[in-house]
């Protein structure tokens, strides 16, 4: 075991794993985390705690992840390259490990121009690829990125990274995944999938390269509540692929919420059959209560037991 996290145990046991997402509050209230954590207990192996996502200031992902640990929930603490240099990142990694956090997800981070502090200076001392590599170096070589040794108690993380099969250039996306594996990624969470045909095409290339045997790929799912949300993502969010027939289907629905759940469940059933997919990452933006409903309907509850 690299980290001994529950997520690692479920994935290495060859079981279909589930992760969900929990956004920390925009204030200092620990109860907000505890309340959201209740939705996730027993539903997912681990829960992603986002790091100032969309560049909006929120409670620190590591602090919120530590609160999640205290609730009995296993966090995947997210770490972005936007706000910290390599000194602060390594310091936070040591702190995260000391607080009982075992999974880290490494990302570039949303550019600050999208958030509520567009005047801020970004850092990008490292990029996401180099962050993955640094976390692995600290764990496996027991050294800091400078080469200095970590004297015992090295941080042992199960290392996550993200992949967006829908961004351009499409043919480079598999190469980029291979690079993340080369850097040290143990598991991958994808951008939310709406265009299943394109995702299947990407997975075919992934399997052809044998990458699914080197990393656990978790397919990103976002249940939608309205066609408006879909239209917004289609026009406003770069690197998203949203088929028109999905928008038409949501437009025609009498009960859009129910239709959104139907769509999510149908996609999950199809994804379960795709070779090389090891699990799901659920991102029900602001609709956390729907997660158990979807998992129940797709036969993914109760979660498997691991020691």
């Amino acid at each position: 075991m690299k980290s001994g996290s529950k997520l690692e145990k479920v994935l290495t046991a060859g079981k279909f794993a589930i992760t969900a997402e929990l956004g920390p509050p925009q204030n200092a209230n620990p109860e907000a985390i505890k309340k959201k954590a209740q939705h996730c207990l027993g539903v997912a192996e681990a829960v992603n705690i986002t790091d100032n996502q969309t560049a909006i200031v929120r409670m620190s992902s590591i602090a919120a992840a530590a609160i999640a640990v205290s609730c009995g929930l296993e966090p995947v603490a997210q770490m972005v390259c936007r706000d910290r240099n390599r000194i602060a990142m390594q310091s936070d990694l040591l702190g995260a490990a000391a607080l009982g956090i075992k999974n880290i997800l490494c990302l570039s981070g949303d550019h600050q121009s999208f958030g509520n502090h567009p005047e801020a200076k970004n850092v990008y001392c490292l990029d996401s690829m180099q962050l993955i590599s640094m976390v692995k170096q600290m764990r496996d070589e027991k050294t800091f990125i400078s080469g200095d040794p970590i004297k015992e108690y090295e941080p042992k993380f199960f290392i996550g990274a993200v992949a967006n099969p829908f961004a351009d250039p499409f043919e480079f996306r598999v190469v980029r995944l291979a690079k993340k594996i080369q850097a040290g990624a143990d598991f991958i969470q994808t951008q939310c999938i709406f265009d299943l045909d394109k995702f299947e095409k990407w997975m075919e290339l992934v399997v052809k390269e044998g990458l699914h045997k080197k990393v656990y790929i978790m397919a990103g799912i976002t249940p939608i509540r309205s066609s408006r949300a879909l239209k917004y993502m289609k026009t406003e969010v770069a690197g998203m692929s949203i088929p028109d027939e999905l928008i038409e289907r949501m437009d025609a629905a009498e009960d859009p919420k129910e239709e959104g759940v139907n769509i999510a469940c149908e996609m999950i059933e199809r994804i379960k059959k795709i070779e090389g997919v090891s699990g799901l990452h659920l991102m029900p933006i602001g609709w956390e209560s729907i997660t158990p409903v979807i998992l129940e309907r797709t036969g993914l509850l109760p979660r498997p037991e691991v020691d």
Partner: protein
Amino acid sequence: MIVADRKPLQEILEYIKDYKKIMLMGCGGCVTVCFSGGAKAVELLASQIKMARKEQGNDIEIIECTPTRQCEYEFLEELKKDVESVEAVLSIACGVGVQAMAVHFPEMHTVPGLNTKFMGYPVEHALWEEKCAGCGDCVLEWTGGLCPISRCAKKLLNGPCGGSADGVCEVNKDNECVWQLIYDRLKKLGKLENLNQVRKPKDWRTSTNAGQRRIKFEEAML
């Protein structure tokens, strides 16, 4: 070349509000080429300032000049007599020129009339784009001659990020995604393998992290 842009007139007028006689100094180098600080720009700005001050009933006298390069002491020295005859100098050179003036004439209040923006070149008539960040450790060899440090909003060395769509950068829709361009260029050159390995973290010591950088050209030392 260095590309700079005029400050708003109101800001400039505020800088010089206490003075009755100033020198307006342009530069015959980069800023002449990008229209912001050459002899024509000096003439135009001088007339705008005089007009504005006249309206306020507070006339100002302006000596206009445009040395070959404001960033070299020898060109500034030629202007010594005129500089010493004014209360302040309004410089419309880049930030380098303003500082050369300020250091060469330490008694003189020198104020900037431009915002210095970047190193770049005109991609079409009257349109300049940033192309170099002066990071001190050039990567253009393996990127097909396209710079991700100055042109990628996240300075990625292992790009493109997930926000690259239809060749456009998600951060600024006017910009092409430089990583898409790098990919296309390397493909044409038959060097896509340049992108296969994980590029190591950049050593930012060569960049602006330790304050002013210096270069000594030993062979040319007197």
